[in-house]
């Protein structure tokens, strides 16, 4: 076969046309109907399991029916059969990229119903914020790394996951588990930070900061990356508000809303941080907002270690704390208390309440109805991913099929949280 010399022959080769002239009116030859393309539920370029039924006009998306639910693990039904403490492992697996924040959210909801909000030991609050912000960093690292990989940039993925690995190892030192920590308890946290943790974490933050410089230099002005992110999946401020978007996605669209600042909880009023805002609301802004938030989290962490007081990490309220082991084995009172805490669970007075905090993806809340027993009568999770994913159809519209990947990546849909 003759070597290909010009563009026409290339097209001929690719499309298998006999007559090169045919190429001029390709559109007419293509079937005029809309085509349905199914993406997922197990698709390589999407981290998370979701099915998207795209109706496409050529390459252009006319309609994208997003169907979640492939990871519906029945958080709510399982919670109704578990004690309040036993729900913590389930919350770990909601947003499994930032489990500590979910832990804190659940603890806050239960504490709200028990009237313990604001009555926790100061050190416990600080420890919670420290592990939450570490979790937020892992969340954003994973989101950025995975999205970059899905766009073909494998190196930043390796770099960022290396950073995440450092944080996982530190979190393992704190809680005993790499990923699903179940570290927080109603009324505080299960154990104190290990010795020398501050120095290790601060050293780790410095390393992460230097890796971030490398990664940003790889991505920020990378032509491919920018072309595939900038101007893609734009969301206006008004749309972002009325579709319920929160977190980095809303902030990229210019919605100035961060639970940590607007409805301050824990010790966030005592630390300084900025809330980054985007201007265009496209994927590139979402990426930049995440990178900036990551740096802000590091800033919060550094302040926390400067301010953290000594003291207990668990409330002394007998309704929520376990007695000391020595007392448990030697006195009947503590034995009963221990037994009742483990078997019956923390007794939460009847009532309903909604507690929320800034999760990795935005406002994460738990709506709990308690009936006075040791298990929640109802436990609803307001998951930001679910709300964000509902905007996906709007974002996909009039984009190309290839744009689904960055849009989806930057929505940062976490299956466990979205499908609950």
């Amino acid at each position, binding site marked *: 076969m003759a070597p290909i010399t010009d563009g026409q022959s290339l097209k001929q080769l690719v499309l298998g046309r006999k007559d090169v002239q045919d190429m001029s009116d390709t559109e007419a030859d293509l079937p005029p109907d809309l085509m349905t393309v199914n993406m997922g*539920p*197990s*698709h*390589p*370029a999407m*981290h998370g*399991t979701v099915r998207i039924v795209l109706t496409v006009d050529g390459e252009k998306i006319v309609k994208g029916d997003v169907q979640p*639910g*492939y*990871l*519906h*693990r*029945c958080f709510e*039904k*399982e919670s109704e059969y578990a004690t309040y403490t036993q729900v913590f*492992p*389930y919350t*770990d*697996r909601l947003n*499994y*990229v930032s489990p500590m924040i979910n832990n804190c959210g659940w603890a806050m909801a239960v504490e709200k119903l028990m009237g313990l909000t604001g009555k926790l030991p100061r050190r416990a609050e600080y420890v919670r914020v420290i592990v939450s912000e570490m979790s937020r960093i892992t969340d954003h690292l*994973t989101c950025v790394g*995975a999205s970059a990989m899905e766009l073909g940039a494998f190196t930043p*993925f*390796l770099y960022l*996951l*290396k950073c*995440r*690995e450092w944080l*996982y190892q530190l979190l393992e030192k704190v809680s005993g588990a*790499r*990923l*699903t920590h179940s570290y927080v308890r109603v009324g505080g946290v299960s154990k104190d930070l290990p010795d020398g943790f501050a120095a290790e974490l601060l050293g780790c933050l410095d390393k992460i900061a230097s890796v971030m410089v490398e990664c940003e230099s790889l991505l920020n002005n990378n032509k491919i990356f920018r072309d595939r992110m900038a101007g893609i999946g734009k969301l206006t401020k008004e749309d972002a508000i009325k579709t319920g978007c929160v977190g980095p996605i809303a902030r990229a669209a210019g919605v100035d809303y961060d639970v940590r600042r607007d409805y301050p909880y824990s010790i966030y009023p005592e630390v300084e941080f900025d809330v980054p805002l985007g201007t265009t609301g496209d994927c590139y802004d979402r990426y930049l907002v995440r990178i900036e938030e990551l740096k802000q989290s590091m800033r919060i962490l550094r302040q926390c270690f400067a301010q953290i007081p000594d003291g207990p990490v668990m409330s002394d309220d007998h309704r929520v704390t376990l007695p000391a082991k020595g007392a448990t084995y030697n006195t009947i009172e503590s034995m009963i208390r221990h037994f009742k805490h483990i078997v019956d669970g923390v007794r939460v007075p009847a009532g309903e309440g909604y507690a929320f905090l800034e999760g990795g993806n935005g406002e994460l809340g738990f709506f709990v109805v308690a009936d006075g027993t040791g298990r929640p009568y109802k436990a609803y999770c307001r998951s930001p991913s679910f709300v964000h994913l509902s905007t996906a159809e709007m974002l996909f519209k009039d984009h190309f099929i290839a744009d689904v990947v960055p849009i989806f990546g930057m929505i940062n849909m976490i*299956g*466990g949280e979205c499908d609950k």
Partner: protein
Amino acid sequence: MGVELTTTRLEDAAKWAKQGKLARIPDWGRKFSLFTYPFVTACCGMEFMSVAAPKYDIARFGAEFPRFSPRQSDLLMIVGTITEKQGPALKRVFDQMAEPKWVIAFGVCASTGGFYQNYHAMPGADQVIPVDVYIPGCPPRPEQVLDALMMLMDRIQDGRGHSQLRLKREQMIAQKTEE
């Protein structure tokens, strides 16, 4: 460092060739070039990423290259909870893979359903497809995954994989019917 290992194994191969065990050579080759299809659904995906990422580096076992088409892969890694809604998709992916094929259930959810015992979580992926190696843990540590991979390699070498056994059985049946 790879040289030494490779040499020993080549010697293995030479030995088998002398012993007339040439039939083992394809399996021997297969176990070092597993093409993974990561069926990632849930939390375990985070640890799956860790396994693939620098520190644990699954590439050392020749299984680093994820093929995102089931038709090109021979190792299905079920990473995470399988739900009833996901079941048909899992089955379809498995059916699309070429023989011989192996399945690893990554994490306790894929193995037994773990602590999700409810109306939508399937009690283990083996309700739908046969599984060769189960990795416990919620999620399993990367070391466990590497251990499981080595177990699978042994299994492949010995020809004890579900699909290998089935193929053998089918061959035997075919021979019997010919006779």
